[in-house]
């Protein structure tokens, strides 16, 4: 009895391997946990620090013109771009000052409709009134009867006044008036509306977002009249404040989702939000994931169709990139053109894109595993051809693929920065000549050049640029797995990605739905793009209030 058991006991080698496997797994677990805890700690401490801050004391403007001017000068006149323009309002026998920041206002409007009117035209109206010297009524008189400008506000509080001046308002101080008037005359030069360069289409609107938030929201409004489109404004950034807008369809969006987005935006804590990429990274679910958890786009039509599916758009001032949340995997391979074209080409192109995504991710890994590990699994003639061309290549297939892949990645990165006139020329030199020369020199095999070129082109066919980057990163992981364990390694790699994707959520929506969790209704818009008459429901996954599109 004992001898049987003893003969079956594992030897020390197996035990050591078992313990090692456990230790490494636990090591990975704690590494992961540690990395995540870092972020949580940072957030928690930042929240505490924020609570400790107290607001700046309020001081109101006084009745004395000179004192007010002095106070404002003390606070902001150390900026050389703040201008003080003093002049006399003759008929009222009062001094007045315009305070503005250079380059932020429409000069024509200020000189024509403010200064000219105050200095010259105010006469006739003022002559028959004696009560004008009542200081409280002066402000409302100027607002109501004198200034032909649409944005005029009263400001009584010094700190707020200074802020507004620095944000581009023109302030008017008049002797004897206890308030300042703020004249909205924003006249910054902006970029013209261009076709979005990162998401060019053959068919579809040629309009793209710009850097000005109000223009962007107006583009959304101009897509069509709707009372349901709601646009809420937030301010983000602790030191430099910026406007952030969330847009949604009031009667479609799921209220819990909306609340979640609001909560996360409320938690943003950063001194300056430079681009919507900051917002994206500060509100995402899993910062260790290679996959993006919100979609960025420059196209208003894309945003609007996202809103109609029950998603929420986040727009930030100062960037043409809007964010759409939540995002699912299938969205990354969809292009607005799929819907503008007829359904048959739309469907075929979409399937092509799925195939291209697969190639962009797996092609080099499959090449390595077939060439290095299982040449027997490919047809004999093909195997013989490939092996013949590889004769004389001194490297193992991993190094061979790495050489070419890395040089292609460098070329691509350089291509973004190349000046326009020499860009195409360098592309030809880099791509064609280096590839050809590498084959001639016997560093790589010609078959590999085909594989790498197809991979590179495939990754450009993905409509969302940042999704393409994800696949580029993961491709190298796949290559390493294939180099270690061949086809088995490749399969493990696919399984890890499947596992990761099915754990990943974007704002509570599983990332790979409708594939899993399975929602048959949403399959109409996955590999297929069903004819429009069949697409009569909003995506199930968004759990919208209003399920039907018609």
């Amino acid at each position, binding site marked *: 009895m004992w001898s049987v058991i003893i003969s079956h006991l594992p030897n020390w080698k197996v035990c050591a391997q*078992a313990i090692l*496997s456990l230790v490494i797994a636990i090591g990975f*677990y704690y590494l992961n946990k540690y990395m995540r805890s870092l972020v949580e700690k940072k957030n928690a401490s930042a929240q505490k620090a924020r609570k400790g801050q107290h607001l700046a004391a309020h001081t109101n403007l006084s009745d004395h013109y000179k004192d007010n001017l002095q106070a404002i000068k003390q606070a902001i006149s150390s900026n050389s771009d703040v201008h003080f323009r003093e002049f006399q309002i003759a008929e009222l026998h009062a001094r007045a000052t315009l305070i503005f920041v250079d380059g932020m206002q429409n000069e024509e409007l200020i000189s024509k409709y403010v200064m000219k009117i105050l200095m010259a035209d105010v006469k006739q109206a003022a002559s028959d009134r004696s009560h004008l010297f009542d200081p409280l009524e002066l402000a409302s008189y100027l607002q109501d009867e004198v200034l032909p400008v649409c944005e005029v506000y009263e400001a009584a509080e010094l700190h707020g006044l200074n802020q507004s001046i620095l944000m581009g308002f023109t302030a008017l101080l008049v002797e004897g008036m206890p308030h300042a008037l703020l004249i909205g005359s924003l006249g910054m030069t902006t970029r013209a509306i261009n076709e979005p360069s990162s998401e060019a289409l053959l068919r579809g609107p040629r309009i793209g977002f710009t850097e000005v938030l109000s223009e962007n929201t107006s583009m959304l409004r101009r897509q069509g009249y709707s009372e349901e489109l709601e646009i809420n404004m937030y301010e983000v950034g602790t030191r430099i404040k910026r406007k952030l807008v969330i847009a949604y369809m009031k009667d479609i969006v799921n209220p819990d989702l909306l609340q*979640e987005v609001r909560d996360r935006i409320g938690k943003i804590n950063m001194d300056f939000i430079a681009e919507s990429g900051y917002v994206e990274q500060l509100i995402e679910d899993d910062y260790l994931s290679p996959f993006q958890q919100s979609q960025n786009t420059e196209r208003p039509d894309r945003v609007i169709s996202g809103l109609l599916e029950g998603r929420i758009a986040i727009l930030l001032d100062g960037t043409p990139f809007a964010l759409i949340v939540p995002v699912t995997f299938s969205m990354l391979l969809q292009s607005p053109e799929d819907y503008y074209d007829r359904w048959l080409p739309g469907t075929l192109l979409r399937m092509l894109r799925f195939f291209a995504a697969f190639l962009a991710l797996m092609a080099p890994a499959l090449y390595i595993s077939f060439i290095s590990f299982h040449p027997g699994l490919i047809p004999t003639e093909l195997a013989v051809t490939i092996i013949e061309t590889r004769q004389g290549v001194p490297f193992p297939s991993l190094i061979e693929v790495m050489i070419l892949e890395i040089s292609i990645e460098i070329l691509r990165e350089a291509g973004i920065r190349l000046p326009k006139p020499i860009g195409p020329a360098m592309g030809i030199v880099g791509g064609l000549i280096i590839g050809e020369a590498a084959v001639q020199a016997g560093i790589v095999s010609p078959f590999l050049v085909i594989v790498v070129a197809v991979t590179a082109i495939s990754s450009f066919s993905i409509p969302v640029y940042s999704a393409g980057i994800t696949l580029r990163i993961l491709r190298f992981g796949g290559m390493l797995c294939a180099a270690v364990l061949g086809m088995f390694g490749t399969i*493990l790699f696919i*399984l890890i990605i499947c596992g990761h994707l*099915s754990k990943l959520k974007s704002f509570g929506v599983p990332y790979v739905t409708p594939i899993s969790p399975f929602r048959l209704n949403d399959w109409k818009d996955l590999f297929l793009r069903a004819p429009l008459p069949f697409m009569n429901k909003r995506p199930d996954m968004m759990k919208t209030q209003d399920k039907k599109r018609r």
Partner: protein
Amino acid sequence: MFIRNDDKITTTQTSIFITDTVLGAGILTLPRGVIEAAKTPDVWLSVLLGGFIVIMVTMVMVKLSQQFPNHTVYQYSKRIVGTIPGGILGVCLIGYYIIIAGFEVRIFAEITMYYLLEGTPIWAIIIPFIWVGTYICFGGINAIARVFQIIFPISIFILVLSYFLSIRLFDIDNLRPVLGEGVLPVFKGLKSTVLIFTGCEVIMTLVAHMQHPERAVRATFAGIGIPFVLYLMTVIVVVGGMSVDSVMNSTWPTIDLLRSFEITGLIFERFEFPFLVIWMMQLFCNFTSFYFNASLGISQVFRLKIHPVIFGLIPVIFITTMLPERINDVFKLGDTIGKMGIFLFFLVPVLLTVILLFRKKVLNHHV
């Protein structure tokens, strides 16, 4: 509720979970195992019969589990027969799951070493496999079900396609005569057909995790039905394509069948490669399911947290995998599992049901 934190799975996911748990090593081992036992071409009858028996037994399991909503077998067995006997039963099930998990990994490693990675040390295949399984188990039953849902359609498609292509070798004479040696060989073959259905016990834990436990019967029917049909196809196609004698002489008859014909004009001349790929994924699902069920069992029987248990099982499964020294030991282990399966299959659910009914009806206990 938009953001869900409850760990529940849908009815479809339950079906796929069962299918992916049952459909595994059997595709490769079934034809030879059942032919060795029966030695006649009537083995498909054994599969048919075995399938029916299994479906009946799983129905008993489902009905039993539905009596205790939100409780897994590990929890309700304690309530039916008392804490200690219930605990012992739970430990038996856990041990059974661990041994099967080890068995599946070992079969996997043997096939991989034989066809894909000659000369690779076995630990280099097993350990990454277990690690990936651990990663997926960590997401809980929901994440596992979702992974299964992604893999399931691909593997079923390739499996059916490769059987369809091998029809060109099919010869109906290989399956004749029907019942030429009487009914007895059919019953002899039953023993190994039950082995291939091992795994349907997971329904006793799944019902507790279902969103709509009242639909468990339907889910189980589909979940057992799909592998049942596929196994039947396997046996018919393999025996019909290769004849009884060559099946007996081959270690992995299904792969040998697929290697024996070539399709010209495609990228892959032989279909054994895609078949191996999906089979590896399928076996991974199998393994993950048993791994998860074993860890869930340990955490519920001994009231531990599940994550340390999942870690603790890594070396246990590894050692279990390495215990059989040669491939023949592996097959012997497979037979033993079949026998254990019969015991756990019939005794556990039937016995529990009988005791439950006895206590409820005769002793009027409130269980």
